[in-house]
């Protein structure tokens, strides 16, 4: 497994408020990494920095062995796809048009090619939103929108997918479907990093957990190690405890 993304001593502040303080980690192909942490812990900021939307105050980000600053914006987009936490799309684009925007970094054609349309359709079918393709994005429900946005990320066909709370607004069946799909992407060689608050989804589908707290990566472990030391649960609430499902998988519950 080679490192696709390498974050080295990254710090970031909003004015005088420090959010990230010398954060470092490496992640490679085939990993499905859950980025965990309480509200305001810097998960979205870290994803913004890795995707290139924000510039780190200090530190560096390396993508495929080359400094992020040496890649053009478009070259980064060909390698890293980012699903922001909130996309409003107030102007009346259809679901299909929005997913089609995922093909932007790959073509200079005025209109998408048949190959692009095949990929758009495949992505929408994988996220179960092909039936809504002609509907205006802002007429969709929260869950339908989230599936369309996820399809846009998949259609972008990048090696790394950065997803900021991808299961937001999804019903339970769709949450399972979403994380299962991301695990499948990882198994096919992609790197998926998902910021999430759902610890059980992370434990069930991800390969690695990374907990951000007080501006640093407080815990970084493989999911298989999660039950060995429960200290990391205390970062979220003192009422959390961990047991196991009948199948033996780790499971977090409230006391």
């Amino acid at each position: 497994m080679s490192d696709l993304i390498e974050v080295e001593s990254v710090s970031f502040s909003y004015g005088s408020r420090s959010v990230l303080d010398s954060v470092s980690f490496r992640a490679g192909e085939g990993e499905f990494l859950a980025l965990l942490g309480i509200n305001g812990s810097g998960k979205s900021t870290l994803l913004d920095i890795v995707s290139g939307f924000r510039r780190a105050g200090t530190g560096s980000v390396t993508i495929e062995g080359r400094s992020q600053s040496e890649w053009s914006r478009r070259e980064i987009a060909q390698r890293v796809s980012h699903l922001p936490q909130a996309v409003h799309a107030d102007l009346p684009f259809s679901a299909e048009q929005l997913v089609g925007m995922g093909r932007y970094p790959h073509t200079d054609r005025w209109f998408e090619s048949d190959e692009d349309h095949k990929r758009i359709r495949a992505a929408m079918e994988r996220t179960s939103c092909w039936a809504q393709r002609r509907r205006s994005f802002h007429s969709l429900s929260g869950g339908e929108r989230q599936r369309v946005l996820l399809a846009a990320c998949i259609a972008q066909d990048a090696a790394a997918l950065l997803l900021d709370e991808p299961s937001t607004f999804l019903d339970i069946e769709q949450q399972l479907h979403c994380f299962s799909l991301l695990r499948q992407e990882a198994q096919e060689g992609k790197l998926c990093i998902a910021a999430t608050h759902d610890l059980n989804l992370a434990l069930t589908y991800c390969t690695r957990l990374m907990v951000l707290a007080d501006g640093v990566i407080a815990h970084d472990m493989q999911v298989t190690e999660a039950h060995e030391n429960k200290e990391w649960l205390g970062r979220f609430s003192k009422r959390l405890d961990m047991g196991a499902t009948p199948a033996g998988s780790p499971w977090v519950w409230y006391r």
Partner: protein
Amino acid sequence: MSATQQLTFLTRYSLTLSLAVFLGAAVLLPWVGAGPISLARVLQHQSPDYEIFLQLRVSRTLLALVAGGALSLAGTLFQAMLRDALATPYTLGVSAGASLGAVAVIAAGWETFLGVPTTWIGALAGALGVLILVVGGAFRRRRISAFSLLLTGIAINSICAAFIIILGGFAGISRSFSIARWLIGSIDATSYVSLAVLTTVVLLVSATILTQARSWNLLAVGERWAASRGVQVGALLLQGYVLGSILAAGAIALTGPIGFVELIVPHLVRSRISPDHRLLMPCAFLLGGALLALCDAIGRIVMPPAELPAGAVLALIGGPYLVWVIRQRTSAEEI
């Protein structure tokens, strides 16, 4: 029929229709006016029909087509940049700056400079001043965002509006009337040299804007969305603001601050044809030009021998239309 074929068919259909409307307006509307013009007399170069047709009707129809197209495209562009279907060159202060410049020279009593109407020079200088102020004010930590552009634009808009009122108060009755009339916006006969300059600038700027149509699509969804799909957001916003301002300022310099065309046409095209800027922008340009030329023609015939300014006709038609459109919207379309 594949998706590409469907899109190509829709493109050809809507673009062809818009082009037909634009050309139809260019050919037919010069014949509309308070007095009839004989085609035979025009073809034989006989006075006064030939002069009225060529020097007055054709030039103002062409001016309306170019200015209307420029304003409509500028509106479409600013709406994409600010992700707001109600954004116009007025929102970002460009029109107010151009108006202040023109009002200042009217109030000062300057009419021409080296044969060029000073209102043109004043409007262009005012728009350029606002452009520099807004872009300078919107830069924060070497970055520019749509939000900072909007806030700075609104602030400069208010300042310009205040100065226009102050200048109007000191200008005297005759010049105050000229100021009020200029601020309504109208299409007047203009020299073909001026028209050629405006047309060249508008076509070059419009073509540059159109080449970025896919990027405007992404920016219309969101800055973070566009950035993570490969768009240089800051550079694109800056480019859009400068190009949109040139379009608006060029049109306003020759016609005054005509409103509504940049609001109605993009809305109509977006809802009836496509929100995709690859179609929306060329169609908005063509139909915006045709609408302004039509309003100017209506203004020539509703109460002859007097003429109603095109800006007033547009407001009288556009205002009720906009209210009707808003009432037709379903709750899902509310934005």
